[in-house]
């Protein structure tokens, strides 16, 4: 790969990811509205598209307030962690043949490492706010994300066994003769559920459960610092969607009448829509239900999936 191509890929990925995160503001509100039989954003610009611009400008001009009782350095540092870790995860995703920032041979592990770094933004944000609601939200977030990370990793291992590699480009190449969704459908469901829990989206938005904890770990955040949490969440949705597509739905593979990048984007947006649909339709479970569901159902299920996959791979 020449240096020019390399920088072009980096710039392109950054541009597309950040703009997708911003565009998701509009997409989420529009889709939520349509599913609730309303029209949604309709004032600024065509189809209310400029709501993205209006929202961003509003966030920038809000008072950027740091509460006097907060731990200032950690308070400022926490929102940056989530954005940085999610953006770093995007380096390993192959968007098309030869369009990947870093072709790591430990790509899947790097993704897991970065998603475990993302926990810190919730934990530190909640702790530094020095507020009981924020602290409760942070503690829920920490336990939820640690437990769901365990079988997120385990569910991925089925794909790793089938393709024999941690490298995401090789995983995509291994799906030439059939996507992994068919042999690994149990792994796919576990990964999807764990992914929703990792991005703490509804129905698993227990760290910020607004009906009981004000706004959870970001109760004290305002202005662009709150905006960073928000962008981090939207980029997290995009990340999990594109990981699902890469691991189980053949990444950029598809019939030749469309270029590979388009296939990748189309498949990713299907899963982004699924995330939004889940938000529109699911009730929030109780905290202990969430933990029980994870450790008593999903964790044994992912172990069994791993065992059966390994046995079949050995026998065939």
């Amino acid at each position: 790969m020449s240096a020019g191509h390399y920088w072009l890929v980096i710039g392109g990925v950054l541009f597309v990811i950040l703009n997708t995160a911003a565009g998701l503001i509009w997409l989420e509100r529009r889709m939520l509205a349509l599913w609730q039989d309303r029209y949604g954003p309709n004032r600024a610009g065509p189809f209310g598209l400029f709501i993205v611009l209006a929202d961003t400008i509003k966030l920038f001009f809000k008072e950027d307030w740091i509460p006097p009782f907060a731990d200032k350095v950690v308070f400022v540092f926490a929102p940056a962690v989530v954005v940085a870790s999610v953006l770093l995860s995007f380096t390993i995703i192959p968007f098309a043949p030869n369009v990947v920032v870093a072709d790591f041979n430990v790509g899947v592990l790097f993704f897991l490492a970065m998603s475990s770094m993302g926990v810190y933004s919730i934990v530190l944000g909640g702790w530094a706010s020095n507020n009981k609601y924020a602290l409760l939200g942070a503690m829920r977030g920490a336990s939820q994300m640690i437990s769901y990370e365990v079988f997120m990793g385990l569910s991925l291992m089925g794909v790793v066994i089938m393709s024999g590699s941690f490298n995401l480009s090789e995983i995509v190449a291994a799906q030439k003769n059939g996507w992994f969704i068919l042999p690994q459908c149990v792994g796919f469901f576990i990964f999807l559920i764990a992914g929703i829990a990792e991005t703490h989206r509804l129905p698993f938005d227990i760290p910020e459960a607004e009906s009981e904890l004000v706004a959870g770990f970001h109760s004290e955040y305002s202005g662009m610092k709150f905006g960073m949490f928000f962008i981090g969440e939207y980029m997290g949705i995009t990340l999990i969607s594109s990981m699902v597509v890469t691991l189980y739905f053949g990444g950029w593979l598809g019939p030749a009448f469309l270029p590979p990048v388009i296939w990748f984007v189309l498949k990713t947006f299907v899963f982004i829509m699924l995330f939004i649909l889940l938000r529109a339709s699911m009730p929030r479970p109780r905290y202990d239900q969430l933990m029980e569901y994870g450790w008593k159902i999903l964790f044994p299920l992912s172990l069994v999936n791993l065992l059966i996959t390994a046995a079949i791979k050995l026998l065939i």
Partner: protein
Amino acid sequence: MGVFFYITAAIAVFSTAMVVTRFNIMHALLYLIVSLLSVAVIFYLYGAPYMASLEIIVYAGAIMVLIIFFVMMLNLGPESTRLEKQWLKPGMWMVPALFCVILLGELVYLIAQNHTPVTGIKEVPPKAVGRSLFGPYILAVELSAMLLMAGIVGAYHLGRQQPKTLHRFLQSKPS
């Protein structure tokens, strides 16, 4: 590569020093995370990407989160920072510093004795790690599995449902 190593090593040494000298435990833990991350970068530089990822996933991502979780449960405020300041008088540093100086002296001596630079770094892919773990080192893997099993049994014992005991007024069923 040499430059990257020295930058990372400097960050590791500095952050580890900060871990020891911070009075606020949360700040100390944050520096410890930075130190673990820089060790992971050093692993990566010297051809062990698998070890680097595991270092981040296991140490920086899981164990440190658990420690921070418990520190949050304890709700240590500025009061504990003040106490820590009281306990950690300069005199406390004397003996540890002495030991560290002895170790440093030994290290410098040993490096001066044979100063051949590290050569022949070869990358260890994940497959090789797996092969050696389940080949020559299978006994260690099995032993650690047994240790973990003991931990799980212990946790189950501590966390099992206690038989419900009711106050004697509540024991009789309402008729």
